[in-house]
């Protein structure tokens, strides 16, 4: 079996994968899936543990002010 055969088959399949990924992205953006990213990223913070507060330290070391 020649090597070119593998690439002849592998390349279109890779392109197919790529195409489906691009389509999924296109679909996602059309559906508003990609909006409000900043809110998404910030959703793990709240008044209890706000942005700017480091929340993990070695025991005994005094925590840094947030």
């Amino acid at each position, binding site marked *: *079996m020649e*090597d070119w*055969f*593998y690439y002849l*088959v*592998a*390349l279109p*399949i*890779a392109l197919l*994968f*790529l195409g*489906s*990924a691009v389509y*999924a*992205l296109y679909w*996602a953006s059309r559906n508003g*899936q*990609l909006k*409000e*990213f*900043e*809110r*998404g*990223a*910030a*959703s*793990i*913070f*709240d008044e*209890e*543990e*706000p*942005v*700017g*507060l*480091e*929340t*993990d*330290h*070695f*025991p*005994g*070391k*005094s*925590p*840094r*002010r*947030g």
Partner: protein
Amino acid sequence: MANPSSLAASLSPEASPDLVKRAELSEIDASTKAPAIFLLGSSVLWLLLGTVFALIASFKMHSPNFLGDYEWLTFGRIRTAHLNAVVYGWSVNASFAVAIWLMARLARGVLRHTGLLFTATVFWNLGVTIGIAGILLGDSTSIEWLEFPPYATPLLFVAYALIGAWAIITFRFGKSNHIYVSQWYILAALFWFPWLYSVAQIMMIFSPARGTVQSLVNWWFAHNVLGLWFTPIGLAAVYYFLPKVLGKPIHSYYLSVLGFWSLAIFYNWAGVHHLIGGPVPVWVQSAGIAASFMMVVPVVVTAINHHMTMVGSFGALKTSPTLRFIVFGAVSYTLASLQGSSMALRSWNEVTHFTHYTVGHSHLGMYAFFTMVMFGAIYYILPRILLKEWPSAPLISVHFWTTAVGVIFYVVAISVGGLKQGFEMNNADIPFIETVKNTIIYLELRSYAGVLMTVGHIAFAVNFTWMLAKRRKAGATAPTLFRTGPEIELEASAR
């Protein structure tokens, strides 16, 4: 639960609108305590046991007469017991614990149905125990990653179904108005695993497919356990803990979403690269190579995102144990994945396939990435559910440095040995036995690395047990380590 309306209320948020309120973080953490402690406790026990198995197997590889007279300790069994103990014992238990804690926190709700969860985890550990005993006694199926004898797997399946059901209930009760990317990963993983596992069990063991279709199912499963279970759980933890510890949002939420979907699409085709050159259809092999190569996309995207989040905050690596482990894991994820993509390329696969190089790669993925991320997560979670601090900072440092140096040493030694083995094996002028002899020195180095990692595991286990046994300070509502500056000043001025 006899009353049907209360049962309905406990399963669906619509049936009980008054239950819907955002819970305090500490309340949420506390609600995960019982199942999380049970899961983490058993995961640590499995880690220790798996490490002992690993050392025995590793010594046997260069000193075959070591414990050579015991049938149940023969290499083929002890190696398999090691894999299953660290994968289904340590890694899955740890990932369950981390996943339920993250799910509860991200859904902003206290944990419900802890009884259900507890039953599930008991079943899981029972299944793993029976499975490993079965392997040592000679009932292994000899199917890679699916060695548990058929009498152990139904237990695992029941456990898994219960946890899946629990996750859906928790998700439905979520009070957060946003689905954070970590939740995507966890939900996807919880959904994917039972599918993979049931198809593999049916087509490999209960009603085996004919011929090498079995091998395709085998590697579709085995690689996807990594790609669609451990990787998503590990990444979910990184995506949560990295920004959370630093106190700053992830660099680009967009990239994290892109990373998620590209991983979902490409990873699950990649498993066939274990069969390159084997007696399976050439087009599936090609698809596997293509998908493996395309994995560069999610990996690079994720790496950029993590790195950009870290930029400017590297100082925090000194102060936060969690961050150290998580960052080490995230970097290893990038390296392991890029290495994996390269190993699927035909010319490189010709050399590395069937050699110890693959073993190095799997430890880079399962240990340097996944296990280190789990260590980091446990360092963060345990103080919050026990409301105590870790008793010993030096033990944490010992744990980090021995495991970090140990695993690097491990991967380098075994990879160099594996490459030598691969090149020599492809040269038919070198007698096979010589290629074996030439790897022995690297296998010995690997054992030393293993001993170093064992030291780290013991340090971790001691710290863990000590923490469980330690008495909590009276009136503590939170571990001191995450109290903020003003609170501490207040306390000081009150004295």
